[in-house]
């Protein structure tokens, strides 16, 4: 028997496998394919204070072992989420983490305040790393003072778990991780997408309407894994590892590098059942290797 439970800043997840914001809708989209109750958690689509139409089409480009996206946080706003979507999805026996975004600190505060009293939601993901919005977004996540400022501001109004999502588009991610830790983050999740670009040599135009976009998928896995390892050696708060996880082996690598839990992102597009397969694969790896508690894998890299 393998104990798959993991603990993120006091919150128990039934297993370390969660789904990444923006790649899993609000969960419902996958209801036909998997039993959502089996997931460790769901990080839902990025939310903002007000309705956002997102960027113009095209928003997507396929790249070698990956993709670029420029969705730009299209969503109907936090109130719509709370009034219309959350009532439908709260029935699932899994942790729902809203992913919150803003152009200014006040937006983050307003969204976090609305979430604070929602029963059943035990934590939020503070996204300071979205590369696809003109104002705010990634800008918060690439400077240590602003990352700390937004974390501190949300900390003041939000009593439950704050997971700050870090940008990989920085010189030293440990500096930002330490900053948000000291500003009150309960955990960090990393990485968000790498800023990239695609060009159509035929038309001589950028493929994305926004010229640049966020790179995700297995292409970024080595970079994400390195950053998790660096951050694990720099902070004490738990890490949720993200970036190109396509199978159980990848997930285990992220745990060995220091993740307490992981998020499956782009892989959901290739195989809508992959999250469940990863749970099963981690379990099998643990049984085969005599690991009684999956949590023991966290940071167990032999160096």
């Amino acid at each position, binding site marked *: 028997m393998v104990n798959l439970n993991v603990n993120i800043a006091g919150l128990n997840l039934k297993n370390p496998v969660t789904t990444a914001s923006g790649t*899993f809708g609000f969960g419902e989209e996958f209801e036909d*394919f998997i039993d959502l109750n089996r997931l460790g958690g769901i990080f839902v689509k990025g939310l903002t204070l007000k309705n956002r*139409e997102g960027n113009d*089409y095209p928003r997507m*480009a*396929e790249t070698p*072992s990956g*993709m670029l996206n420029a969705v730009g946080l299209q969503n109907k706003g936090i109130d719509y989420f709370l009034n219309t979507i959350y009532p439908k999805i709260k029935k699932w026996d899994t942790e729902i983490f809203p992913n919150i975004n803003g152009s200014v600190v006040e937006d983050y505060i307003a969204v976090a305040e609305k979430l604070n009293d929602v029963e059943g939601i035990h934590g939020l993901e503070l996204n300071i790393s979205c590369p696809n919005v003109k104002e705010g977004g990634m800008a918060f996540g690439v400077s240590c003072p602003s990352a700390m400022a937004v974390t501190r501001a949300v900390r003041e109004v939000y009593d439950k778990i704050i997971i700050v999502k870090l940008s990989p588009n920085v010189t030293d991610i440990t500096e930002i991780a330490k900053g948000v830790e000291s500003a009150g983050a309960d955990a960090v999740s990393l990485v968000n997408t790498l800023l990239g670009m695609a060009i159509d040599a035929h038309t001589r135009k950028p493929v994305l309407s926004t010229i640049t976009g966020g790179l995700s998928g297995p292409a970024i896995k080595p970079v994400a894994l390195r950053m998790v390892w660096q951050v694990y050696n720099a902070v004490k708060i738990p890490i949720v590892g993200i970036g190109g996880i396509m199978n159980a082996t990848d997930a285990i690598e992220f745990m060995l590098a220091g993740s307490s839990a992981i998020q499956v992102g782009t892989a959901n597009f290739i195989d*809508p059942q992959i999250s469940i397969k990863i749970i099963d694969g981690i379990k099998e790896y643990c049984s085969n290797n005599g690991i009684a508690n999956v949590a023991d894998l966290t940071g167990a890299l032999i160096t």
Partner: protein
Amino acid sequence: MKRVQDFNVVGYNWLNKDNYIITLSSDSDIENIDPGNFAEIKVPNSPDVFLRRPISVLDVDHGENTIKFYIKAMGKGTRQLGNLDVDSKVNIVYPLGNSFSIIHRKKVLIVGGGSGIAPFIMLASKLIDVSTEVTFLIGARSKGDVFLTDEFNKFGKVLVTTEDGSMGEKGLVTQHSIFAGNMDFDHIYTCGPDPMMKAVAQIAHEKNIPCEASLENMMACGIGACLCCVTPTVRGNECVCTEGPVFNSKDLKW
């Protein structure tokens, strides 16, 4: 219900060097599929193709458990899909998207070109079931690019335009003489290149005929999870994979 299912390659029917019909079979039952629904196909053995590819369902046989796709080899993925071994496995996610509306009308026009003609067999057969008379108008560059007309002929009259005049009337579909007449159609369905659909929709609006257009688009997930496949509509940006691919052309802001 949407499903991920493994199929086996039964075989190919090559229409010319770039166009083919692939037939797949499954050991288990095939889900119900409506005209206009598409599938997200995982291209096997292709080092360059990362994401699935959206392809409309051409036809399905629930007795034999087979499904057919009509594919135009546009790039790496659609080319590799035409190059699989018989009996090799292909994984598809389906049925996806909405479908053309099937309602009894006196006479409807179905206008298409390129790979856009794929949904028309299922569409016409369902329309015939509700006693609607069907006319097809197919546009192509040249005679060699006109496919599936034998199939269409089973359901209704088939009109053709070619840009070089090698078959049917010369010109673009929208230049077909049928549009000059009094156009006694109650409904128009269109699927094909964007400019063609826009022109058809334009005529439909002028003549006050309801028009449904099935859009193509670059998709990552096909199931409404990524929000990559939007098109601007009167209601704001909507996902082609879930709110579409079929739209009332009046709702589109293209």
